[in-house]
């Protein structure tokens, strides 16, 4: 069985609510069968709108969405066969857990025996067997969330949409639910489209992540690529921490470029979004890629003054004043060698040009 790599396809989709502003601009996105894809972005970036269009609660203003090669814009939500987990669970408060799960089966006229079997299976999948007769109000937040997940899966939909499903849970529960949802996805192989604004959640769970901003997909790639190789300054900024230097390209070769910073000093960087000298750029560097007092030979070596030291247990965050950037962050692993990190000290900071990515100036 070959998997369809265009199981869900957004084809040139535009969406506007008021005819003046486009909230989704020219969206082209292919989702493969069995994939766990996350739409990540700040609020108002259009990610939830995309999900609602896929679910059928909003219609695309222009373009078409295909599900398994069939256009679905004219199919009402209840005929799409797409499971959905809502932000606030949306469990039916007047029905027991069993009735909640049986609802999608009942409307599909599944026999009583079959329903019992499926509900049993779905509940054991989220490890809630024995909760059939509870009302949703008697369950904790995490349990309600699991019921919502089970309900979205019980009728074997081909695609499951999740709209910030873990937003209302506390941190510990959220993390354990992330793994649980990931494992469920791995074991049943359903296609999942997940919407969140929490980058940690996205990085943990997804096969691929689509970073949304301003109605557009900024980057679509696997979590590691997204973090290691952001293609523009928005993604670099939005995913994880990063140190930024703005400047102007003064010299460029195939895989290296010289960037003249605003304070006059020059650094070597990896040209990603710049093509010729004279262009303005922002150089992005992950905090963990810059080392202090290292013996390794690196292309960029500078001295900076320690402005602030925050102790985090396993590592220490150090804020430096480096090359005119007063918010240069370093993460120093907790080891006995790094004892001279004190406020006001000057330290040597080094990094490779490959890790310093020269991106668009935005």
């Amino acid at each position, binding site marked *: 069985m070959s998997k369809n790599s265009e199981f869900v396809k957004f084809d040139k989709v535009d969406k506007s609510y008021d005819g003046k502003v486009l909230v989704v601009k020219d969206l082209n996105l292919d989702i493969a069968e069995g994939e766990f894809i996350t739409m990540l972005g700040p609020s108002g970036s259009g990610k939830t709108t995309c999900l609602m269009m896929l*679910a059928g609660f909003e219609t695309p203003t222009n373009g078409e969405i295909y599900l398994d090669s069939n256009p679905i814009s004219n199919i009402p939500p*209840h005929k799409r066969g797409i499971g959905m987990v809502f932000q606030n669970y949306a469990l039916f408060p007047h029905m027991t857990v069993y009735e909640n799960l049986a609802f999608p089966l009942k409307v599909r006229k599944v026999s009583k025996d079959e329903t019992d079997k499926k509900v049993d299976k779905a509940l054991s999948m989220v490890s809630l067997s024995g909760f059939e007769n509870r009302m949703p109000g008697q369950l904790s937040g995490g349990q309600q969330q699991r019921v919502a997940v089970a309900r979205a899966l019980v009728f074997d939909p081909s695609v499951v949409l999740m709209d910030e499903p873990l937003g209302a849970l506390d941190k510990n529960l959220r993390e354990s639910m992330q793994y649980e949802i990931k494992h469920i996805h791995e074991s049943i192989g359903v296609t999942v489209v997940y919407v969140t604004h929490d980058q940690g959640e996205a990085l943990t769970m997804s096969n691929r992540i689509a970073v949304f901003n301003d109605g557009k997909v900024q980057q679509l790639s696997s979590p590691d690529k997204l973090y290691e190789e952001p293609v523009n300054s928005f993604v670099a900024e939005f995913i994880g921490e990063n140190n930024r230097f703005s400047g102007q390209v003064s010299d460029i070769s195939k895989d290296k470029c010289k960037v003249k910073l605003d304070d006059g000093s020059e650094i070597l960087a990896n040209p990603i979004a710049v093509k010729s000298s004279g262009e303005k750029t922002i150089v992005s560097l992950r905090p963990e890629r810059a080392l202090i007092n290292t013996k390794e030979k690196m292309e960029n070596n500078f001295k900076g003054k320690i402005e602030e030291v925050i102790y985090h247990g396993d590592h220490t965050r150090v804020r430096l004043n480096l090359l005119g950037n007063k918010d240069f962050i370093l993460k120093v692993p907790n080891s006995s060698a790094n004892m001279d990190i004190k406020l006001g000290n000057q330290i040597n900071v080094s990094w490779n040009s490959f890790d310093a990515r020269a991106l668009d100036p935005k």
Partner: protein
Amino acid sequence: MSSETQKILTTDGIPLEESLRKAEKKNKIKAFLLVCPLLLFLIITYVFPIGDMLFRSVDDRMVTKMLPKTYKAMEQWDGKELPPEEVFKGFYLDYKKLVEEKTFGKLATQLNYEKNGFKSILKKLKRKMKKFEEGNYKEQIMSVHKRWANVEYWRALKRRAPSYSYSKYLKGIDMYENEDGQIVQVPEDRRVHKILWMRTLEVALFVTIFCFLMAYPIAHLLATLPMKYSNLLMICVLLPFWTSLLVRTASWMILLQQQGIVNDFFVWIGLVADDNRPEMMYNKTGTYVAMTQILLPFMVLPLYSVMKTISPSLMRAGKSLGGTPFIAFWKIYFPLTIPGIGAGCLLVFILAIGYYITPALVGGASGTLISNQIAFHMKSTLDWSFASAMGLMLLTGVLAIYWVYNKLVGVDNIKLG
């Protein structure tokens, strides 16, 4: 065993319970004082009048007090044949006293309620009584009018002997206690109250249904529209609510009368002929239309407050799980609005069942309700005890409906706002 029953002491050695009571005492007094004005207000304006009403409806001491000697003598009388001389003598003495005190009119009115024809013979007796001689009052009284020799009238007099009676309640449901002490229905042509009770129930029921049918979509729209529009719509719902009841009823009279705007419109679009304009007022139609409009906000508001709390994602969830819009509505949305429906229906029904001014103005003869009858007896016939009895019957009915509702839906499920 002993350690379990041992009282826990505070550090000062006072039993914990006692210490707690002391600590809470001040707060309790404060709370009571805060509630006190309302409590007094309720007792004065609610408990006393209702109690007085209950008492009036069964109080029948007026006649008993007016004729003490008669009733004393009547204790020996078996009621089969004309009473003995002592009864006539007692009656003469009692009545003479009443005439001297000039309060005999009240007696005449009361006795006439009991049996028609009492008034005239009492008046005649008053005139002839001046020439009565001492002794043999039976002969003398019987010679005044032939009705005095009719045992029926004396039986009617005896029936008023007890200080308390439930006869008003019987009258309220078109029954009475006949000469043999049996409870029977009044003749068919005089059964007015039963019709009124049934009509009141019918009007209240239909007004509730009409209100529900109209309010449900309005409330749904109010709860789902964006704030900008829903506020405007809310004002449209409440605007009539802020207008005087009398003004609204009067404006319905302008609209519904035979030469009114609605009829003009019907004639204009050719729905009815000009010489055949339907009567929409001074009958049940008028009562239905006006009461539905007036009571509509009482249905909209509880429904709205309940619908506002239903998350729109529930309907979406229902649809995404495969339910058609109708199934999603019927299985998910509707059951969640039941507390609002209950509250709204109960409110409208209870208000409608005791509604007075609108049916009085637009109801005409076939559209008046039991409350109009109560008002009639309060103001026109001055039979307050009968009005009280009917008022209490109405109150009992409302309480019964509340009880049934509680059994069926549960009062905890009511949501008023």
